[in-house]
């Protein structure tokens, strides 16, 4: 091992501790004996089921919309491309609560598109669909940045496919998508983890109605006041899912 300047040791340990100690505390204080009853309680099951449903829907929606956009950004040139790229990745750094306010101003009853949606009989704020939309808003960028996966595919392979008789759709399905798949899978996993943990945009745009919009993170926050053990148990579930996602990503897709 190389010798290291002592100056670095203290901050490095503090960094590891800053992340590590709270996580250890969470596991340490967990009501292990009552974990099973806590997790099968109706509130927990409801929140967990809703969270899974919403986050998977948000991931599917992000995939269906984000992958085509990623392809367009990687493979074509159009006016305003840089602006579009900046805009769709903005939610990665935007405070989620701001996203929630923006969603209300767009899709709310008196929002930009609210009247049109109402005419179609669609209500989004404070509904389960709204929770999915809020999660999609913050998670979609993780699939759009999978654009890098498309960039790694040599365009000359697509040229070779065309000369072999492949129409653009066939080349996309059989050459480009399979070669970009590792990046798209990693993007989808990160997108799902982000959607599952979404709090700020969801509570702002969809509220916190048990069984409709009260996802796991919201349930944790609300349980903390009157039932800390339940909050810890639910937090453990989110932690376990996150760790599982990270391990799967490292082993299979990031090659680390």
């Amino acid at each position, binding site marked *: 091992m190389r010798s290291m300047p002592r100056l670095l040791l203290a901050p490095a340990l503090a960094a590891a501790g800053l992340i590590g100690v709270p996580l250890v505390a969470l596991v340490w204080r967990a009501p292990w004996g009552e974990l099973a009853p806590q997790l099968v309680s109706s509130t927990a099951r409801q929140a967990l089921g809703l969270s899974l449903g919403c986050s998977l829907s948000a991931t599917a929606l992000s995939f269906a919309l984000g992958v085509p956009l990623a392809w367009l950004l990687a493979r074509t040139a159009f006016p305003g491309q840089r602006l579009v790229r900046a805009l769709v990745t903005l939610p990665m750094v935007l405070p989620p609560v701001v996203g929630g306010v923006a969603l209300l101003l767009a899709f709310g009853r008196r929002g930009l598109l609210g009247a049109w949606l109402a005419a179609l009989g669609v209500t989004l704020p404070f509904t389960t669909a709204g929770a999915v939309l809020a999660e999609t808003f913050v998670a979609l960028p993780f699939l759009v940045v999978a654009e890098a996966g498309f960039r790694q595919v*040599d365009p*000359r*392979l697509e*040229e*070779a*496919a*065309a*000369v*072999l*008789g*492949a*129409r653009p759709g*066939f*080349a996309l399905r*059989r*050459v480009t998508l*399979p*070669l970009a798949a590792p990046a798209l899978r990693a993007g989808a996993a990160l997108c799902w983890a982000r959607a599952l943990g979404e709090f700020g945009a969801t509570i702002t745009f969809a509220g916190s109605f048990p069984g409709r919009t009260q996802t796991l993170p919201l349930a944790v926050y609300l349980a903390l006041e009157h039932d800390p053990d339940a909050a810890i148990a639910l937090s453990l579930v989110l932690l376990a899912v996150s760790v599982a996602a990270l391990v799967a990503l490292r082993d299979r897709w990031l090659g680390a």
Partner: protein
Amino acid sequence: MLEAELALRLGTLELRLELAVKAGEVVALVGPNGAGKTTTLRALSGALRLAAGRIALDGRVLDEPARGVFVPPEERAVGMVFQDRLLFPHLSALDNVAFGLEARGRRRADARTLAREALERVGALELAGSRPGALSGGQAQRVALARALVVGPNLLLLDEPLAALDAGARLELRAELGRQLREFKGAAVLVTHDPDDARALATRSLRMAGGRAES
């Protein structure tokens, strides 16, 4: 029979070339880097569009800007072999060869049977299950040749097929290529910078420089 009058600009290159290749003929394009040899092939394959001129293959017009005709690469009966092979890295050698057949609507099982036969004809049947990453340069080029030939093109384009190979593999593959070209019924254009390859494989040579043919 290929009849082509090519005119296009690509970067600083200004290509102007007349080319006629009869069925059964192999024309070698020789010349230094930047002479426009690969650009010529890419115009013939449809990867590049002409600015002016005309390409016709067996009487069918493939590209003629003046009349607004452009047939995309996937609808041309053209096979192409690239210097760096460009095999699909995620597919086995067999599936690489079957690719063009499936793209043209063959069912997978049929495509694989024909692909197997095509690999056998170039002496590469034992490579069928290998991924391109596991093949040597010479092996990969045999697979690439089978992939180009299996769809039955009327025009075969070979872009430096023997470059980037070691001496032994080069001689072996040159002999194989010679056999395949003698059996090939269509027109063939071979790009090479090696006069020996041109002499061994081509029925005639055309020397290019600066985007034009030298007389």
